[in-house]
């Protein structure tokens, strides 16, 4: 139906074809417009969340960088940026190391209780965030980890590991372990064989898993709402109170910056996915 209409198509089929295309266009618009609409609004010169007359007539006076200035000079916003990066990077490192090592074991079909282990290790991704957050809040406060960086980092690392496990296991599917044996029979130590044979192959998976773990932590707000004190507030946490308490277009400037970051991450992951498929000999 998507190929150009055949010349013998009837009237009804033609009408349906254009209706279908129009419907899809509307859905794509629905998907993307809400994200794009905040970008021009973040340059609003007035403290409004909607387009002013000046903006619509492209009057330069209608636009300004004041909300970006607000963001870059605000102590609490800058602290939240620092916190977000500290927490996300630490959580990503923990999740990536543990997740990659575990994936090497999980990718072996002869691992005992493989399905059960996989289910358990993936569970942080399946359990609704509000429940994970509630459980962690109860437990972490009873052992004194609530309102500490360590607590938030551990929680975020736990939430991020399933993504690393899944992406790295996926790159190992179809891996021929006789390659490792070949390397060892040629004199390579197991460590050397790992870094020379397995590592290059799983690197794209490791990096995209790490990026997933990073974005999970970077975007996460429910656990932060429960576990973080004032000192640990992250960007999403600051946006949350921005929306609930003192709504100001600074949020739109922050949102625009975050959209730019997600575009960068999306492009990276997409490139890695293609590279991984090429390395494994699958057509991209």
């Amino acid at each position, binding site marked *: 139906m998507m190929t150009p209409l055949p010349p013998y198509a009837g009237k009804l089929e033609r009408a349906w074809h254009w209706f279908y295309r129009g419907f899809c266009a509307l*859905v794509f618009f629905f998907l993307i417009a809400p994200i794009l609409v905040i970008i021009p609004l973040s340059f609003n010169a007035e403290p409004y969340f909607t387009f002013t007359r000046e903006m619509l007539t492209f009057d330069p006076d209608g636009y300004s960088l004041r909300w970006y200035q607000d963001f870059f000079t605000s102590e609490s916003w800058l602290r939240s940026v620092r916190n977000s990066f500290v927490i996300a990077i630490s959580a990503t490192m923990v999740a990536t190391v543990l997740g990659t090592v575990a994936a090497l074991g999980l990718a072996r079909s002869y691992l005992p209780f493989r399905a059960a282990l996989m289910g358990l290790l993936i569970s942080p991704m399946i359990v609704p965030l509000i429940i994970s957050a509630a459980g962690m809040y109860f437990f972490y406060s009873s052992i004194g980890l609530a309102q500490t960086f360590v607590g938030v980092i551990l929680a975020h690392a736990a939430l991020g590991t399933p993504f690393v496990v899944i992406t790295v296991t996926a790159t190992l599917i179809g891996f021929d372990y006789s390659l490792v044996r070949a390397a060892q029979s040629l004199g390579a130590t197991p460590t050397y064989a790992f870094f020379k044979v397995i590592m290059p192959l799983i690197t794209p998976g490791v990096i995209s898993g790490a990026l997933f773990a990073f974005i999970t932590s970077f975007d996460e707000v429910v656990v932060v709402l429960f576990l973080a004190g004032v000192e640990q507030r992250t960007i999403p946490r600051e946006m949350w109170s921005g929306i609930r308490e003192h709504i100001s277009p600074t949020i739109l400037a922050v949102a625009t910056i975050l959209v730019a970051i997600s575009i960068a991450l999306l492009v990276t992951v997409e490139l890695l996915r293609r590279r991984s498929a090429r390395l494994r000999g699958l057509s991209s």
Partner: protein
Amino acid sequence: MTPAPDTAMVTADGLPLKLKLRQAERRKKLTAFLLVTPLLLFIIVTFVVPIFDMMRRSIDNPEIGEVLPRTTEALQAWDGRDLPPESVYAAFAADMVEGRENRTTGRVATRLNYEISGMRSAVNSTARRAARLEAPFKESLIETHARWGDPYTWQVIQRESGRFTASYYLSALDLRYDESGRITLQPEEQRIYLPLALRTFWLSGLVTVITLILGFPVAYMLATLPLRYSNLLMILVLLPFWTSLLVRTTSWIVILQSQGVFNDIVAFFFGEGARMQLMHNQIGTVIAMSHILLPFMILPLYSVMKTIPPGYMRAARSLGANPFTAFRRVYLPQTIPGIGAGALLVFILSIGYYITPALVGGRTGQLVGNLVAFHIQNSLNWGLAAALGTLLLGSVVILYFVYNRLIGIDNMKLG
């Protein structure tokens, strides 16, 4: 020179090959398991234990047994009819005196208040005067607060003095004990959680249906277009997927609020009177959640549709089927696994949603997750929060097993 039947093949160090092989197999298994161990321990400590701790809290009931030990013991002999004997009142007075000294009566006050409203003040005012109470304690306690003259109060204390309780689950399911101790439904106007659960399932179902209606044609288009175009259009699906949840929710607030972009357009065409209330209600929750979860519908649908050979449709057409019949009879049945995967995924994600309903849902757009948060942060009724959370978790786990049966966790794809 034929080898004797009992001499098996041996390796260089003289061990039978079979044994050696088994050792090697076992070592391989052990190595694989050791690789998984660090993460396993990490997840157990940081994630699994907290979840079980929450489940424990939903039945944990230490307050009355710990703070009122004498009363608990004295009540064991009571048959539950009329008022308890003087010995129970005396024990209660002694417990109150001690509880007042240790500042623990507040816990009992809060705990009993969950069962009978108004008990907080009854216990607190009694605790304040506990030291001045004199025998006969029955009369002086009833004089201090009329509640102590009601057999129901004592029935509740007797029932809730155990180490564990079902009462948080009963509350979470809008059930209660009636005067004779049987479990019954709350009167209709006092039900909170059953309507909330119904609303959560209804709104999640609605979001699932909306995302399916919007996502199916798009997935089909992505799967059938030449790769050049579909890769470009795929970005439009993946960008929202990668964009922060808070950013997307903020966008919807910007668009939907009464002075927002959408209403400004409506007002421009139809006048100021045409502005609609789209936020702080269920409409806002459904629109924003449908947008946020749409990629989770499109991606599984797309990966299933990608595997359906386009030739099938052409074959059906060439055999005389009109386009709609060919689609309905040949294409659609093959997409069922994708529909199942996408729908279950969206439904599972929706019933646990918290952030978006909290920000755009107002009072009528709240889901179960919001009440869990409310009881943790505002009402401080952690037992009830834990019971609600456990019930929510139970529903997700059941759905997840269905998902695993139908699709398999290994087939979960990302990005």
